[in-house]
């Protein structure tokens, strides 16, 4: 912070003024908190959620919604071509069609860990909804659905995604739990943001060459603690 300022403490430094300033400073301390508390709550909410999940269950259940400025048929069309999913879903390496309604999903996790499963479509209403679930016996029992509702005011499509990954236990399952990193909700949020970017702009936004990797790992960047630094870098 800049120190060379007009305020000169000596200028009005009689005792009444000093007392007033001190009282103000105390008032400032007492009144601290609104901003601080609000910010802290916002920052810790996702961490708390993560903590609870860790204690209670490692299952991953995420709901996310985004408005995409394309008509439902375009958004549905892109998603329905399941091979497109790895373009924006970071944990997926590939989705391969193996039948009319069946597909093979390959996911990658930490330290080169890989897992795959087969899934089937259980609902497919063109331009409205798609739902799928893994076949029985999968290492990672999971299911998901996505709805494509027209957004009011010609704003395109309200996309609603729900994903559920069961993580029953055991070493493999624990690794699976890490597919989404420490902040599954945030990662899926990032996935859908990328989908929106692809469909609206034709590309995925990236700040610089050396940040492609970083952009895909937002949780790592949580080193920024706004609440603690109070806006100071």
């Amino acid at each position, binding site marked *: 912070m800049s120190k060379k300022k007009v305020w000169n403490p000596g200028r009005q430094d009689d005792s009444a003024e000093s007392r007033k300033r001190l009282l103000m400073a105390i008032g400032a301390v007492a009144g601290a908190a609104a901003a601080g508390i609000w910010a802290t709550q916002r920052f810790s909410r996702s961490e708390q959620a993560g903590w609870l999940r860790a204690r209670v269950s490692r299952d991953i259940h995420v709901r996310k919604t985004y408005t995409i400025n394309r008509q439902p048929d375009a958004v549905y069309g892109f998603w329905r071509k399941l091979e497109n999913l790895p373009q924006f879903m970071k944990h997926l390496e590939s989705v391969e069609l193996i039948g009319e309604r069946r597909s093979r999903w390959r996911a990658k996790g930490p330290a080169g860990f890989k897992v795959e499963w087969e899934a089937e479509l259980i609902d497919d209403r063109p331009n409205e909804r798609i739902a799928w679930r893994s076949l029985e016996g999968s290492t990672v029992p999971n299911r998901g659905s996505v709805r494509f509702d027209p957004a009011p005011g010609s704003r395109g499509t309200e996309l609603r995604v729900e994903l559920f990954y069961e993580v029953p236990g055991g070493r493999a399952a624990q690794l699976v739990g890490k597919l989404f990193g420490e902040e599954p909700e945030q990662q899926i949020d990032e996935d859908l943001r990328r989908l929106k970017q692809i469909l*609206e702009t034709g590309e995925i936004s990236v700040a610089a060459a050396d940040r492609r990797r970083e952009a895909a790992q937002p949780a790592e*960047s949580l080193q920024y603690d706004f609440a603690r630094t109070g806006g100071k870098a």
Partner: protein
Amino acid sequence: MRANCWMGTKKLEVHTVPDPQILNPRDAIVRITCTAICGSDLHLYNGWIPTMRRGDVLGHEFMGEVVEVGSAVKNLRRGDRVVVPFPIACGHCNLCEKELYSLCENSNPNAWMAEKLWGYSPSGLFGYSHMLGGYPGGQAEYVRVPFADVGPIKVPDNLKDEQVLFLSDIFPTGYMAAENCNIQPGDVIAVWGAGPVGQFAIKSAFLLGAERVIAIDRFPYRLDFARRSGAEVLNYEEVDIYEELRELTGGRGPDSCIDAVGMEAHGPAIQYAYDKVKTNLMLETDRPIAVRQAILSCRNGGTVSLAGVYGGFVDKFPLGAVVNRALTIKSGQTHVHRYLRPLMQRIEKGDIDPSFVITHRLKLSDAPEGYEMFLHKTDECMKVVMTP
């Protein structure tokens, strides 16, 4: 290439960094011919904006020559001279379609950071923290410009760099601040801060039909600039601003008040001390002295237009005055894209020559000295432009 890098609070170094590359089909690479230091760069310099990292390339006011375009950029070619808007906008999301370019929904790859602080994220900006994208800025020899088919505007050959450079930020920023005042015939506009943005707000208020403009600052040379643009001036170290404005406006108060100061305001001893203590204790992130005064001084039913940058939380905000006196607050990072063409026409017609604010011309290698000079207003510094 050489680039001005943020190495920590009050610490800048000009370093050799990797040349930018085309990363996406809609990118362009621009060779910088002219770049400037913005007042909002001083907030970064002073460490008031979170999520800066060592080595970040600064600069969001720049122009230059296109040297390379991505496969999807059809409107630009090698050799085109362009000015680049400081917000990065995709042109296709809902808010871009509404011409709210600084709120582009797609250009901030780190939107999640901004959402945690502000609820939702605005657009990415060049050289303005990782929370706003982490894009390398234009105080450099080259810059990568994303969505180059939407942002950059070509410059006619007859206009010099210095005449058009400020279309990148401060001219549209001052203009939008004045436009937000919805100026009616006979209106009196008060402008807090006679720095570069304030100077453009003053000129723009007159262009938009203001009857009188009153500029407020504490540096006589900056007030002289304002006077030359036709403004009346008040030095807040010499007079009580509220009383003086009341006096100058027949007891009504200014019809609109523009805050061209932002988060690091200075003010009368007590208020400044209060906000300084609170920010030092990290109980407040910004010093909202100018905006408080603008709100209290504005006439009933008037508009307070914020052009200055605020980052976080402020204290003792006179919301009661806003509500009970039916004030309108208008704000936002500038939607630069929508002003490029009309303001370029103003420059071509000779309505304004934006180069009037330039006081110092430096080489990029002298950027750290330029920041110091601009920060401390030494040598009557108003605006620093640099060439690589």
